[in-house]
């Protein structure tokens, strides 16, 4: 039982990270039709900066803040420099361009900070005992921080006029234009928000995985699986999908085989999508002539 609890908490903590990253992907995708493959590698740059600051004795919290700032800045530069010139509606080209950015960012991180694994500091140490299991505080903190961040995003999108405007522009860019919303401004805000969430989730993930230039590829792919499971355009879907993947992943690794985690996670996702192509929270579209 205590083992199960431990696996469950660890699964929820991973899922919270995937969900947070997925949330960032979905926010950017809804606002600008770009599946941002480079999100993880840009967040990695942020992580390395945070680690460098930590090594110089700066408080971890400030380091996290720096990671967020660096990631957001890098993301906005990428959008203005190579995504915006592509023009509207270039779904595939934009995806491939972010792949290219990702290759460059990973390589740059490797050449500056080296390809050797480094350990990333826990935000908090220790563990609490609960019904016979020693739960790491870091995992609980991860869940709590992710929950707070998700709640704030929820508040932004459902309770503020800016959030309504972002949802409006995501629902119909044409109507948004007729009403007079500035789509470029909303797009920049969405990118900043999405990358900020990615950087935050990276800081929560890195203490467990350690830091190499490709450290965030695995959670990015799981976040992808999560958002497809959730329906690609649904923010609830991203969170629920991410949590599902996280729990499944940890359960499969502990109770089935640690060697076949990817196989299990991705086969599950593809099977669900074969049965329900629109995902859990997505809507089926129908083209009319």
């Amino acid at each position, binding site marked *: 039982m205590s083992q199960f609890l431990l696996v469950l908490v660890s699964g929820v903590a991973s899922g919270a990270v995937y969900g947070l990253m997925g949330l960032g992907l979905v926010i950017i995708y809804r606002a600008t039709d770009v599946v941002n493959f480079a999100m993880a590698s840009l967040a990695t740059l942020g992580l390395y900066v945070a680690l460098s600051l930590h090594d110089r004795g700066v408080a971890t919290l400030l380091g996290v803040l720096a990671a967020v700032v660096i990631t957001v800045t890098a993301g906005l530069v990428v959008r203005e420099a190579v995504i915006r010139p592509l023009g509207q509606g270039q779904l595939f080209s934009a995806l*491939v361009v972010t792949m*290219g*950015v990702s*290759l460059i960012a990973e390589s740059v991180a490797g050449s500056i900070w080296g390809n050797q694994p480094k350990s990333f500091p826990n935000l908090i140490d220790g563990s609490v005992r609960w019904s016979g299991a020693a739960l790491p505080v870091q995992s609980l903190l991860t869940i709590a921080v992710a929950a707070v961040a998700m709640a704030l995003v929820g508040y932004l999108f459902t309770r503020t006029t800016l959030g309504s405007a972002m949802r*409006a522009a995501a629902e119909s860019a044409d109507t948004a234009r*007729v009403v007079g919303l500035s789509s470029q401004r909303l797009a920049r805000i969405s990118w900043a928000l999405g990358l900020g969430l990615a950087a935050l989730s990276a800081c929560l993930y890195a203490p467990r995985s350690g830091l190499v230039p490709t450290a965030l590829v695995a959670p990015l*792919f799981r976040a992808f699986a999560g958002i497809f499971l959730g329906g690609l355009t649904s923010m609830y879907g991203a969170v629920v999908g991410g949590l599902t993947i996280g729990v499944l992943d940890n359960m499969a690794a502990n109770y089935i085989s640690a060697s076949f985690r990817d196989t299990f996670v991705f086969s599950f996702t593809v099977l669900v999508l074969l049965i329900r192509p629109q995902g859990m929270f997505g809507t*089926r579209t129908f*083209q009319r002539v």
Partner: protein
Amino acid sequence: MVFNRSLLARAALGPAAGAVLMVFMASGAIPAYQMYSVGLAAVYAVVVLSVGLLAGWSGIWSVGHPAFFAIGAYFAAYGSGHDWPLEAVILGAVATGAALGAFLGYAGARFSVLYIALLTLAFTMVTLELINRWSSVTGGDQGVPVLQLRSGLGLGTVLGGSTEAQYLAVGAAAVVLALAVPAAASGLRMRLVAAKSHPLAARTIGIAPEAQSSLSFAVSGACTCFAGVLLGLLTGFVSPDPFSLNFGISLIAACVLGGVGTILGAVAGGIYLTWNPSLSSAVGLPQPVVQGIVLIAVLLFLPGGVVPFLAKPARTLLRRVPRRPHAETPADPSPNQAPAPTGGPVLLNLEHVSVSYGGLKALEDASLTLRQNEILAVIGPNGAGKTTLLNALSGLTGNGRVSGTADFAGRPLLKARATARRRMGIGRTFQHAEVFSELTVAENVLCTRRRITPRRRAEVARLLHSVGLADVADRRPAELPFGLQKRLDLARAMAEEPQLLVLDEPFGGLDAGERALLAGHIRRLHADGTAVVVIDHVLDDLFSVAHRVLAFDFGRTIGEGTPDTVLQDPEVRSSYLGSVEGRTRPPEHTGGRSMVRLHGVGHAYGGVVALRDVDLDVRQGVVLGIAGANGAGKSTLAGILHGSLAPTHGNRETAGALRTSLAPEGRALFKTLSLRENLEVAAYAAGITGAPLRARLEETMQWLPPRLRDRMSAPAGGLSGGEQQMLAIARALIVSPDILIVDEPALGLAPALVDEVYDRLSGLARDGLTVVLLEQLLSRALSVCHEVAVLHEGVVAVHGRPGDPAFEALAEAAYFNGGPTLAPGTAATAQTSQVN
């Protein structure tokens, strides 16, 4: 497929280049250390070709090809370890690749581009994990050697990593490239590209997109597995390292770089992949950085790829005399009068057919019979269910629920799939000429057939000639004006001589000459024995070809008759013109200063002219009605008056800083947002925030009917049509506009709701708001507006004041026929008696 001489010559280029290369290799002209690279480039070229043709012909971008490549290589390793003959290894790898590819292609056809990316990503991840863990077969990360493979047919033995393996790689790649050349000219490619460019239109000519993508992915997977076997032999050792996901990205980069879907581009891509490491060390940057930069630069600056970019000037040089597309007139003159219908047997019989989407009934209880050799016109205002009727006939109702029965040529129709209806003998055209943009004009028609023989080509050439497209047969549709695209759409529908042709607004967007030509085609089809169902808003042309007319409104049949009699039916007439009883006309009002003035404004979308030379003056305090049938250019004019659409000709002047707001056609609410959020967003967009926003919100809510005020937190998508219209107007009002533009507020509303909407609009006008009302029904426009302009085919035909009986008659004539043809003298008076 047809083998003509130039095709054979091009197909021979691959083996010829391969042979030359082998001679070079044998003569020692290529240094020994580069021999391996040449072989590798050949193998990569095959992989890039597989990925690129899959993307170019089927629109499937796969990151799953590293997995196929790996499967082939491990087949070679396992075969070598278990003494399998070379042929068995190749056969096994190809069969495995084809089976897996067919599955991925079938599954992927249900998804969009992004889902396929995830699907193939998952495939790569799973395969790589299996390879890493299944060490008894794959050797895990230690890898396995490929020592040798002996031919079962006694053709010799290939040692892993030997020179023979390099020759084999070059030779095999040459053969694969050579095979790709005739494939590129085949009907198969045309059908693949057709299914990719427009899946829905492809279904109407009998092409099922799922089958096509499954087939092309199977071939692509098989080729890549074959390349994997070659790689295994070439390297003599197989480990998981080369088959990473990054390799998948590099493959996409190589495809995009060379030019997606071109064979030469694949060779260029293969060469790039092989020598990328050398290139990187030459420029002194890490390899991934170079790859990333190349990828981004190509997508930004050469989205078509390097090879097509270089080929374009070469082709221009070859085509010395540039041909311009022009509309040639078909050879044979067509009879002017529609012959009397023959009393032939019944071809089509519809009984109580209904189509509903969710709660919305798009078509209700439609019944009709059509005889062979009969031309039936279906008319009705926008939203009457006409297109839904055509979609029910051609099987394109999507996820709508279809009920009722229909027989076509004695067989049940409604259960048949869209792809099967073409074989049953039904062809259709589309309102916006949904042609296959990536095929040439001739290929658009050729792809209706599975196999293309010289006879078929001759038939297609004759068909294209008969509709006047022979001169542009090698052009892409995008290079043609809209009128010619519509002819192409018609030619494609006629290609297999269907028994029934279904035409969706064939006259829309055409000029007078083109419309006369089209009418001739329809009559000729009839003379050849084809039955035709045609819907349109251009009534005079429609009536000149039809034997019988059926009128629709609100998804129901409301009248039937001959072209001469149907408009005499009061219900039919009022469905167009409206009948407004008991509404009090607003007091005469000449208006204050000019608010917005248009001078010679025209607008065109691509080649389609929507507005021509419009002069209009919107004065303060006036309700200006703009009446016109569907397609007359109302919404374009609304956008230009609003300022959100820039006219292509002429100019728009406003009196100082002016706030205009638009309630667009079809409401265009944000359906997932609540009522309050819809209002807030509009105010926010206009820069109103904080306390003023709350005040405006409060004020605007007071304007809404109480039943909406109580539901401010409910999503707007849940409102009825009339309620949505009210909210759309409120959303336009919240910014305190100087001019309110309302586009077709009555569209799709029940009469009682229309009255409510109009009462509220009249109330706004009484309070002094300047209103521009775009309205399909002339009588409604006449009953509520101070001034009315009638728009016909993009031109303001008449402009004047309601209440003047002479003007009302003129306006009605203009509405249907475009001009006051009855009394030209009074027309001039009406034109000049307008507001001064």
